[in-house]
């Protein structure tokens, strides 16, 4: 069977796809590529069907040896890559042959590069998905991040696909750098914040702390006041406490009033801290590319704006599909 030999797993590289649906009620989040846009474009560049499993790296990319002829593509973070030591382009269809080695240099912008391989990473599906959820060791390659000497099985390459050298026009690549502006639907338990606190939450440029992973990002940069109240029965007495409830992916909670946490694909699915809004699905791609020390801000939008942003991303993906086929 054809496979990839992992010479080095990098910092934290996992197998991910579009995610695992239908398990939220028992507390299992969808996981999946945090930056769905870059992940989907990578698959388009190698001619894979939607939903094929690819690799998501964090900060430091893996070193991979191929054992047969494949097409590959690297998207997402600006991660200078080399094949057998020769620099190669990102957001472009590349070819590799048996024995070729893909390696990465330090990321210059963004946090997460994606590597798609024609045929997809063919680890077994678990509950309908190949996504890794490391918190409980589910899915992907043995439920964990890649390590040296792992051997990743590959699927059969598609019969046709974009020719080598096909690249994604600059305007259709992910915008990186600067303050990531995250659109947020205010609500859930936002009644717990004073009007001034909500305003200050939106006016603050928040800094990504080192506690930022696939579960969620902890931010710092301001202090948020809660409305004084007699705590409702069952919530617990802290002002940030509510009776434990479900947490949407993308929802923002502010335990202690000074460290907002934005939940991502490996989210905890419920708990007892007041959530004050939800980052729209499209902008989870942006926060996924923010790294420790980067700045993010929140812009309130309504649910119609969230849906229209989602439609726009769909149109962009169709443009990519047209541009590479």
């Amino acid at each position, binding site marked *: 069977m054809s496979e990839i030999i992992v010479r080095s797993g990098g910092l934290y590289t996992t197998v991910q796809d579009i995610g695992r*649906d*239908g*398990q*939220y*009620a*028992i*507390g*299992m989040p969808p996981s999946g590529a945090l930056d769905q846009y870059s992940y989907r474009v990578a698959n388009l560049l190698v001619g894979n069907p939607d939903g094929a499993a690819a690799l998501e790296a964090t900060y430091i990319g893996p070193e991979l040896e191929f054992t047969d002829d494949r097409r590959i593509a690297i998207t997402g973070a600006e991660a200078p890559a080399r094949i057998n030591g020769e620099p190669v382009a990102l957001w472009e269809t590349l070819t590799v042959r048996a024995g070729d080695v893909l390696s990465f240099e330090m990321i210059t912008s963004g946090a997460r590069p994606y590597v798609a391989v024609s045929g997809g990473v063919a680890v077994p599906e678990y509950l309908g998905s190949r996504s890794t959820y490391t*918190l*409980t*060791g*589910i899915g992907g390659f043995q*439920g964990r991040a890649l390590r040296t000497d792992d051997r990743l099985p590959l699927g059969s390459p598609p019969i046709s696909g974009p020719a080598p050298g096909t690249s994604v026009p600059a305007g259709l690549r992910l915008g990186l750098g600067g303050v990531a502006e995250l659109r*947020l*639907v205010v*609500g*859930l*338990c936002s009644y717990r914040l004073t009007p001034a606190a909500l305003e200050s939450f939106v006016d603050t440029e928040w800094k990504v702390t080192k*506690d930022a992973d696939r*579960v969620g990002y902890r931010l710092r940069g301001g202090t948020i006041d809660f409305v004084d109240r007699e705590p*409702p*029965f*069952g*919530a*617990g*007495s*802290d002002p940030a*406490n*509510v*009776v*434990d*409830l*479900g947490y*949407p*992916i*993308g*929802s923002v909670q502010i*335990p*202690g009033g000074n*460290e907002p946490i934005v939940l991502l694909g490996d989210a*905890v*699915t*419920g*708990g*007892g*801290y007041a*959530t004050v809004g*939800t*980052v*729209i*699905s499209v902008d989870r791609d942006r926060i996924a590319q923010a790294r420790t020390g980067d700045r993010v801000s929140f812009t309130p939008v309504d*649910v119609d704006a*969230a*849906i229209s*942003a*989602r439609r726009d991303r*769909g149109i962009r993906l169709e443009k990519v599909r047209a541009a590479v086929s």
Partner: protein
Amino acid sequence: MAATGTDLPPARYEFGGDEFIFVELDQEMSLEANFKAMAITGALREQGIDGVIDICPSNASYMIRLDPDRLHPVELVDELRKLELNAGGLADDHTVATRIVDVPILFDDPWTRETLLRFRDNHQDPSGTDLEYAARINGFRGVPELIDSITGAPFIVTMLGFVPGLPFCYQMVPRERQIEVPKYVRPRTDTPERAFGYGGAFSVVYPVRGAGGYQLFGIAPAPVFDLAQTLPDFADHIAFPKPSDILHYRAIDRTEYDRIRAEVEAGTFRYRTAEVEFSPTAFLADPDGFNRNLLEVL
């Protein structure tokens, strides 16, 4: 549902971005709110609406995850409002077929003690342990009395979540006897696997090692989550607890803890369980009498 006189306020509908709807049935916890969440989400499940991905009943609320490419969130809210009107009070003869489960707990164990001492900076009271803090703010004379109160009446599973298989459990006693504690000021980044925690009016057993914000009281020797599905109780599902399960926490000593751990390691451990018919009306009318009968079954 007049037995405890809890009238629920009108439900509050909120959008969690474009993919989620959150419905709060009450800001405070009550079994009435939980039964209503179970009734509405059960009815929604039966409708089989295209575009609904996940239906998650919670303690006093529920949450839906949907695919907005197939179903507009505003349309779904209209449907949910109809269900809210139809799911009025519970019929007097309404019963739930469930099971009662014996859940051994080693209180004040060395592993959660080590963890809670490591995270004193995140806590309301850095000077003591979580058990001492909880006993004090709940007006108990000491830790033993708090433990007696936890083990004296069973808990019902009112929500699953946080991580796979984690049961939120609510004690089946009148409100004035409920134990209540705040969550940590800042959540911990580490919690031992199988830790027994308490937050708000809920107890939990953490399925896996990881973050957590509940006060740490002890540890369970038996898992609630078994990915490898080696134990017989997990043959059908990786998570053991189900909503509406009734759990009876039993205090054990270190010898029994070690014995159960050995059974778990050997793959022979089984939870002691009994099938029961749970009648919310009968329970709300006479909680203590109802619980006595329940525990006799076990």
